[in-house]
């Protein structure tokens, strides 16, 4: 195997590794997803669906085959049988695969990008199983077919160097009432993030922000004379004694995060933090719990074990 010659190659090299690890990630995602189940949710209005909603008197514009003859036979009027509209919801997924996400410290189990992908694929699998439509901005139109998680994985694997994984999703493709799941470390300038939240909100899209951080990014566990360099190499900071910077750094990180959290709250978006030294299922559960009530119709997701539901 070739050894990477420079940083760019390094990332590409690691992305290849990521892509080859994709089946494993898929399996892991499927395993995590199988622990949760979710039903199709009605829209509390009539429309295409399978469960009965209401009888209504026939009007001229109705098609004859919609008449419920059994009901109509009991009276002199003709009734139309209406079913509840059980439309699925559209959720856009966006894992951040920028260089910053390829960071891993000695305290973490996996790279942030890997964790973002696992969460993306797992939540994708879960949502499709629940009948939702998932899509990748610019890359994959929303789909609720059972192959959608595989397509998702294939699209990510094929286009992992695509620009859309490096910047916030702002596509015209994303329609009103859809939701958007963003997996990133959200360490970019706070203005960018605020702008993104605002633009999502302005278009009627609900955002769910999952901040994935390496534990080292929380605690800054470095000591002594250290030259910090950003992952793209554009910025470097020389610290005479890294441990002296710790308190101030943590304060700044807290401030940064609180700003995002506040903005998200103001614009009806959710925000949660996940660390790569914790198991992915933890984040998935929390995320799912958060998605559940927001999904319209069924009055909240039933968070049940699949086994328990069937018995």
């Amino acid at each position, binding site marked *: 195997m070739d050894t990477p010659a420079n940083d760019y190659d390094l990332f590409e090299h690691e992305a290849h590794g990521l892509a080859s690890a994709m089946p494993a990630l898929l399996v892991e995602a499927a395993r995590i997803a199988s622990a949760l189940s979710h039903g199709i949710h009605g829209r509390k209005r009539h429309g295409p669906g399978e469960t009965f909603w209401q009888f209504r008197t026939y009007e001229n514009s109705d098609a004859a085959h919609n008449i419920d003859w059994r009901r109509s036979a009991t009276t002199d009027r003709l009734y139309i049988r209406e079913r509840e509209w059980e439309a699925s919801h559209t959720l856009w997924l966006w894992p951040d695969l920028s260089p910053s996400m390829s960071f891993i410290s*000695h305290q973490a189990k996996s790279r942030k990008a890997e964790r973002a992908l696992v969460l993306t694929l797992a939540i994708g699998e879960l949502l499709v199983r629940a009948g939702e439509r998932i899509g990748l901005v610019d890359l994959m139109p929303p789909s609720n077919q059972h192959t959608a998680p595989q397509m998702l994985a294939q699209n990510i694997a094929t286009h992992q160097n695509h620009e859309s994984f490096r910047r916030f999703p702002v596509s015209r493709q994303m329609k009103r009432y859809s939701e958007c799941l963003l997996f990133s470390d959200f360490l970019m300038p706070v203005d960018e993030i605020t702008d993104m939240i605002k633009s999502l909100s302005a278009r009627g899209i609900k955002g769910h922000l999952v901040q994935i951080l390496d534990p080292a990014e929380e605690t800054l566990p470095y000591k002594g*004379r*250290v030259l910090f360099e950003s992952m793209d190499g554009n910025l470097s*900071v020389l*610290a005479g004694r890294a441990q002296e910077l710790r308190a101030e750094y943590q304060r700044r990180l807290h401030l940064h995060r609180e700003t995002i959290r506040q903005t998200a709250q103001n614009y009806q978006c959710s925000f949660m933090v996940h660390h790569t030294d914790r198991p992915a299922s933890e984040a998935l559960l929390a995320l799912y719990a958060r998605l559940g009530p927001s999904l319209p119709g069924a009055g909240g997701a039933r968070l049940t074990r699949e086994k328990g539901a069937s018995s």
Partner: protein
Amino acid sequence: MMSLGPLGFLSPWLLTAAIVLPLIWWLLRITPPSPHHVFFPATRLLAGINKDEQDKAHSPWWLTLLRLLAAAALILALARPVLNPQTATLEKSGLLVALIDNGWASAGDWQQRASSMRQLLERAEQHNNSVLLLPTADIDERHSLKPLSAFKAREQFASFTPHPFAPDRLKALAVLNKAALGNQQVTFFWLSDGLDYGHAKEFTTGLTALAGNAKNLTIMKNGAKAITPLTLHALVNQKGDLQATITSPGGISYEGHVRALDNKGRSVFLKPFKLAANTTTTEVAFELPLELRNQIARVEIKGRRSASTSFLVDGRANWQRVGLISGEASEQAQPLLSPLYYIKKALKPFSELTEPDDKNTAQATDTLLSRDITTLILAGIGRLQSKTSEQLQDWLQRGGVLVRFAGPRLEQGGDDLLPVPLRQGGRALGGALSWSKPQKLAPFEENSPFFGLELPADVSVKRQVLADPSQLNDGVLIWARLEDGTPLVTARKTGRGLLVLFHITANSTWSDLPHSGLFVDMLRRLVALSSGVTPKTDTNTASNNPASSPQPGDSLRKQAELPALPPIRILDGFGNFTAPTIYTKAVRIADLDRFTPSKIHPPGLYGTTGRSRALNIASPSLTLTPLPAPPANVVQENYKANGSYPLAPLLFTLALILFLIDSLIVSLMQGLLAPTGKRSRLRKAVQASAILLMAGAALIGTEPALAAPGEKQRSAAEDAFALNMSLETHLAYVRTGRPDIDRISRLGLTALSKKIASRTAFEPVEPVGVNIAKDELAFFPLLYWPVPAQPADLDSATVARINAYMKQGGVILFDTQDQINSFLPGQPAGEPTPLARLLARMDIPPLEPVPSNHVLTRSFYLLNSFPGRWQGGTLWVEASRKNTSSSVRNSDDVSAIIITSNNLAAAWATDERGRTLFAVTPNGERQREMSYRTGINIVMYALTGNYKADQVHLPALMRRLGQ
């Protein structure tokens, strides 16, 4: 030159560089160590936190101290410090005449002399002197008298070694006198070896005269602690023991060990000795059994490497060759009565016995004398032929020892080859008609060689021959007597030899003596008396040639005609054996004892192997005299006991070590101490250990490791390959160079290996792709060789390797994979196929389609056809034996070559999950199964050979068993 106690500096002005040390200190303090590098996504958040405390960025003080020490060591090393420097002065740009005694006496402490000389030359180089080097031992008239630069002189001096002979100082003085030294300033240095060879005073005077002013002459002498020259000399003493004599010039006490070695260099004996200061010699005797003593080839002082303390022991102290002649012929019939029986038993363990078959005494004597015996024993022989007697007389003159035993025939008077005339008739003691009783032996007298031997109580003599008492004169030695005083053993010195008579028989008829252990000891001492027989002088030329009248120079001429002994191996100055040099000349045996070794006759072994004579430096007459006191005003200096020692290399090494430690610490501080990813930590650890390794290599100077690394690596890789391939059995395929074909071959064989492992007792491991041109093929029982449409050409070496592989029992399965083409129309007919082109150069036997009863059809499964991805292609094997006598034919009747066109690998191939890669036509999965069976049959065939063919004999065997 500057000195501080025992420390001197050759370039003291360089010490001024030490003033830059504080500057270095300051620079090191303000230069921070390079920071640890971390990629960190949240760097943006860190920007602008101004908490840098630059004073913490300094290197720790101990690291700075380490670096300063390294710099100081470097500066000190450049100033070239010397421990115990020489103090004698040298003039600027004059001529330095350095005489060095490189004779045998200088070898013991040659390192000291060499070190003094090198230092002298180094100083001469600094003072810009030209140098004239004169080695006093091997100087001659042709010695170059052209002064050299000090640098060249150092090169010249490197070729000087101590010589194994005495220096010739007077010749050196003569040579020096001849040289026109001119009017320049001349300084004389004489590095003496501390011995006066009889002319030291003359030499010193001559040198002083040459120097003009006595102050221009410096004599280097052995200091109190220096190793004084010693010599060692070994001889067989009166008691038959080897005795070493150690001689010193006196004035020193020396303790050490004398060691005796055999001719293979193994230590035989070790004994301590002590040389007191007030004596000049001490003696060490080796009380050894004769068998061991005879093995000693060399005696030396342990730990001294010098030709003068290595004494070579030659044949005179060695294994004896004894000839036996009996006068009786009853040996075979009655061995216990044979006169020679007891003699043989007694002498066999420690000497070489020679007994001629010839019963004719005269001829037997002839034979024995021609075999260079040192001792001749005649038992029971009465009268010798006069000619034989003359021969023996001559032999005795040359140093032989003749031992005669009496017998009934000698009672008649005997001949003249006896130590003393005998009386007619013997003497019987203790007979029926005699008053006398059998006589016991009297104790041996002091002048007898048997002195000291214990007398057993039960030995008595019943009968003997009597010496004529009137003839017992001074020439007759009586070595043993009976209790009544009658001589029992008499002897006479004859020339260099001895004539000994036992007045009894050698068997037990006359006495009990041959039964006793005393007899054995007596015989051994007798045999050891011989000091070797000198080769015969050619007297026949004169006597057989009466025409040539004796001339005055005759004896001289005879001397010259003595055979000269060529050198075998000579000693160098350190006492090691070397091959003779071109100067070495043969030595005449007569001269050997009077010679002192010289350049043309260095000490060593001369003669022919097995009969060599040694020439040694030390002789019994050698005494060592120390140098006399030199004239007044001559500068005297002692060789330093531990020599002057340049410290620069040591300091350079120290500086290097310190720098390496420094770089190690720095890399540790940067890499290993800070938390980082595991991989980078590993990388740093590898770097650190690489530095350590480099340091080790630099210190030890492992040049062989650097020499030709490519070859070593290659052979190591080959070894690894061989080890890998031979520990487990692999199926193998030939890499064609086309990735698609190779991949299918690999996958196909992998799948086949799994099938084989699950179905048969054979468990092949991962298949191997071999490079047919390079890899060793011997490890693989079967080679799968897909033949692409355009096979690469093979060079002749490769073809030879493939032929050899097939001859040695390998099987090659060629797969042309082109059966599909037979389905296609329009195939060109005449063109040679790729396989034909490939096989054209190989040694291929005649082939035939697999017959229906071939082993391949039943080596594991019973098969009718051999399908692969395609069906219908013929499987070709070597035609059966009765039709051919090909050279590629192995004894097991296994076809070395199998050819198919069905593309087996494609049918076998599966991906990692076991899914097949190619459809097989026309019969689908059943055909794939058959193709696996084909593969298993072929592998089994390659492994088990014709084992299954034996089944044809099954009916016959069953019938024989009565079934």
